[in-house]
């Protein structure tokens, strides 16, 4: 029995993920469609939601039960049940509290989290448990965010609070931080290690949105450039190059959207290229990374070790993967945080890995379309900024793991191990949900007003006739 479970579960997981991803894309359209025609759309989306929930639990159960079959320790079984309850509660509560919410997005977040937990359980039980509690706490808080955001009308006026708090937090890491792998990323508070650059990402997007929402001429763009430069330089000084790149991209793309000028996009890209070239010239650690990307085989003992182990993993798994617990992802240093995608690709297979990338794109589109449909500039820019930093971070981490681009060592949001990362991402999604709900409610109130007025007009006409 055990032999069969270990050998066959990977096909169930691949099939489940494949169908889930297809549904997630089909569901995209319905999530943001409003108004009339909603009858069929709603029915269809409800059916799709039902299937997606089923598949989420199927993939999750197949994954964790496979690990249980391999390890044969009861705690794995209990851990699965706890997770099951937590996800069920998250899904049911959210639908109950926010019937107007974007359930597809929320489901996708749960799906990504569950994939992350399955993979972490396989890699390190202790870390998975920790991640589970942090995520559960984050989800509980996240459910409150939409209700709060409606009341916080002052958010768009806090421009310099965001900038100041963000820069200060980053500076504190630079001065006080602990060094991990040559980078200063975190400091300890009350025995808990916090990575502020994750949370400052949110502040930074809020900052840019509030700086630009009234106008985005040169008078706004240049100060924003200065503030961004401060953030980015502090991060570069902490040697957190991946995060620095994310901040930079957020600045360039949000400036592009707010100003409406394509030249800022190209100018920004050119500046990014120049910055990268300068970094390459000036800093040995940048050159080493580029070399490890171009030819990791010549430095396989040192800088190329991580990336080549990652390539071995990905290629060793093949189309359907080795099956959970049957690969060798443990050989990749920092696999739970920086190389989790390689572990997923190895044990769950290339089809699954590509579906995972597609699912991330679906989530990205969901956020992006919130920004497309919302007319309030502050919220539009915020959602757009979140979409861009979310997808760009995924591009950095997966691209680095598969040798598509140089390695930068950022996490895969919701999947990688890391409390700060997972909290930050959940909070970000909560804000996006809040914006979505705000948008729906506004729409609804406009529609109601319009209907009232129309009815009044009709009555008036009737009376007149």
């Amino acid at each position: 029995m055990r032999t069969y479970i270990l050998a066959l579960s990977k096909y169930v997981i691949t099939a489940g993920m494949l169908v889930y991803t297809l549904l997630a894309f089909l569901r995209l359209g319905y999530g943001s469609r409003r108004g009339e025609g909603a009858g069929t759309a709603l029915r269809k989306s409800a059916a799709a939601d039902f299937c997606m929930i089923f598949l989420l639990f199927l993939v999750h159960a197949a994954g964790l039960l496979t690990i249980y079959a391999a390890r044969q320790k009861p705690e794995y079984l209990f851990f699965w049940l706890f997770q099951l309850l937590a996800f069920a509660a998250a899904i049911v509560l959210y639908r109950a509290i926010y019937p107007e919410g974007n359930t597809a997005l929320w489901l996708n977040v749960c799906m990504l989290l569950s994939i992350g937990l399955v993979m972490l359980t396989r890699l390190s039980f202790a870390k998975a448990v920790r991640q589970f509690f942090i995520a559960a706490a984050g989800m509980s808080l996240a459910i409150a965010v939409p209700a709060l955001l409606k009341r916080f009308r002052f958010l768009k006026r806090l421009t310099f609070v965001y900038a100041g708090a963000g820069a200060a937090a980053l500076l504190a890491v630079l001065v006080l931080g602990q060094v991990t792998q040559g980078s200063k990323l975190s400091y300890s508070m009350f025995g808990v290690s916090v990575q502020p650059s994750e949370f400052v990402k949110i502040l930074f997007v809020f900052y840019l949105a509030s700086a630009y929402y009234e106008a985005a001429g040169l008078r706004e763009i240049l100060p924003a450039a200065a503030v961004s430069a401060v953030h980015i330089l502090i991060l570069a000084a902490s040697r957190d190059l991946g995060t620095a790149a994310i901040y930079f991209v957020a600045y360039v793309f949000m400036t592009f959207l707010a100003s409406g000028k394509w030249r800022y996009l190209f100018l920004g890209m050119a500046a990014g290229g120049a910055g990268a070239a300068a970094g390459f010239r000036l800093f040995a650690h940048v050159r080493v990374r580029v070399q490890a990307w171009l030819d990791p085989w010549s430095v396989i003992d040192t800088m190329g070790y991580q990336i080549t182990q990652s390539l071995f993993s990905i290629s060793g798994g093949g189309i359907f993967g080795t099956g959970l617990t049957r690969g060798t992802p443990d050989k990749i240093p920092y696999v739970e945080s920086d190389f989790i995608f390689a572990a997923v690709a190895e044990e769950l297979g290339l089809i699954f890995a590509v579906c995972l990338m597609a699912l991330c794109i679906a989530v990205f589109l969901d956020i992006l379309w919130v920004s497309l449909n919302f007319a309030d500039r502050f919220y539009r820019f915020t959602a757009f900024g979140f979409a861009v930093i979310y997808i760009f971070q995924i591009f950095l981490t997966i691209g680095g793991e598969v040798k598509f681009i140089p390695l930068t060592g950022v996490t895969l949001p919701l999947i990688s191990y890391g409390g700060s990362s997972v909290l930050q991402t959940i909070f970000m999604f909560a804000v996006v949900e809040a914006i979505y709900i705000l948008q729906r409610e506004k729409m609804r109130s406009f529609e109601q007003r319009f209907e009232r007025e129309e009815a009044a007009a009709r009555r008036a006409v009737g009376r007149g006739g």
Partner: protein
Amino acid sequence: MKARDWKPYAEDRQAEKKRIRGQILFVQWLFISLFAAMAAFICIYAVRNRKTFFDNSYNGREAKLLAENTRGKIFAADGQVLAETVTEADGSERRRYPFGSLFSHVVGYSTKGRSGIEKEENYALVHSDLPLSEKAAADERGSKYPGNNVFTTLRPEIQQAASDALGMYRGAVIATDPATGAILAMVSKPDFDPNEIDVRWNSYLAGDSAEGRLLNRATQGMYPPGSTFKLIDAIEYLEEHPDTWQDYRYQCTGTLEKAGGAVHCFHYEVHGSVDLVDSFAESCNCSFANLGLELDRSAYENTLEKLMFDGKLPFSYPYTESHVYLDAETPEKEVMQMAIGQGETSMSPFHLHLITQAAADGGILMRPRLVESIRTADGSVLRQDMPEPYARLMSEKTAAELRRMMQAVVERGTATKLSGFSYTAAGKTGSAEYDPEDESRSHAWFTGFAPAENPQICVTVIIEGMGSGGDYAVPIARRVFDSYFAK
């Protein structure tokens, strides 16, 4: 007017809305295409490099697999085991090679790195594709899964004959079936015992630099081809003069001096008036040096390329590329040397063998192969290597003429030691001088096939530094032919 047509933000924001829509769609497609490119990259990169990555010594995958699978067996064509893993009483595993050093180079070893079939088919050997029911049964028993087995084309009796015939000489013997490309035997001496590779590794590496015990001389050895190169001259001449080659005449005086260079026949023998077949059968150097100068150089260059000089052979095992130097600028005295297989020209025995093999099979080279099939431990076929034509190396007519000329070598030329047996053999000998200081020292070559009318086996022999091909290499080939036809 319906509800959905009502535009809540209808002021002057229409233009901005349109612009933002364009920008957002741009960003959307930008990242979608980036991700599509990345996904395509990873899939292609991972799948294409699968075996290379697997064989990298830094990859821990093999160790993980060997913890659950026992390395598969390697079998000879007749079903005898060439390599297997045995579990000792204490549970440790050992790779056993029942034939000792007989198949050392071709089957190879799997500890201290890997070589031969052990290396090339490593991926298959360490994987186990048993059906799940069998695996479940193995789990019940608490035993490991047996890995996939490799069935080779090698024939132990021919390999043994070749090895015995070569004796203590340094050199190599190759035997293949020209119709299928199946490699029947491949011997290289000095050899080593793969059973003792771990304990005797250092002594195998030691020895004088000429010893090269771990080197497979059959494919990696580089030798001047000597008179066997006349095969290649003859091919070119036959292709250039398909209808008039019979008119070729040359008056041999034992020495040809021309263009500042001089060529002698072996032991300064004088062959007198010879045609092409005589020149070939008696291996007349002067005649071939003369013929070499007559050949159309650009046509010859093309032929050399077609015959895989300075290029790849259709073989995935390690081999050394042969070299020949010829272009419009080559001085005539060097062309004379090239035509008799001396000078800068160097060939591997395997390369020469493939040319003979193509001649034996009507000009078509069948892709040489060592593996017949790969099967799971319970016998279901995972991969079957079918005979596969690789390329036409010469026209059918050229191949037929060449076969007749090679038959003349045995009937009345330098390989008469092969005549008078139950089978009719054909071939070409060579005595390749390799020491400019001492012209009496030469490598002994023979390449040929039997039966001459309907070739079933091709054999190529080289012995290092022993003397003439006719005296030393031909008897070895004979014993290989004998073992094949003894059945």
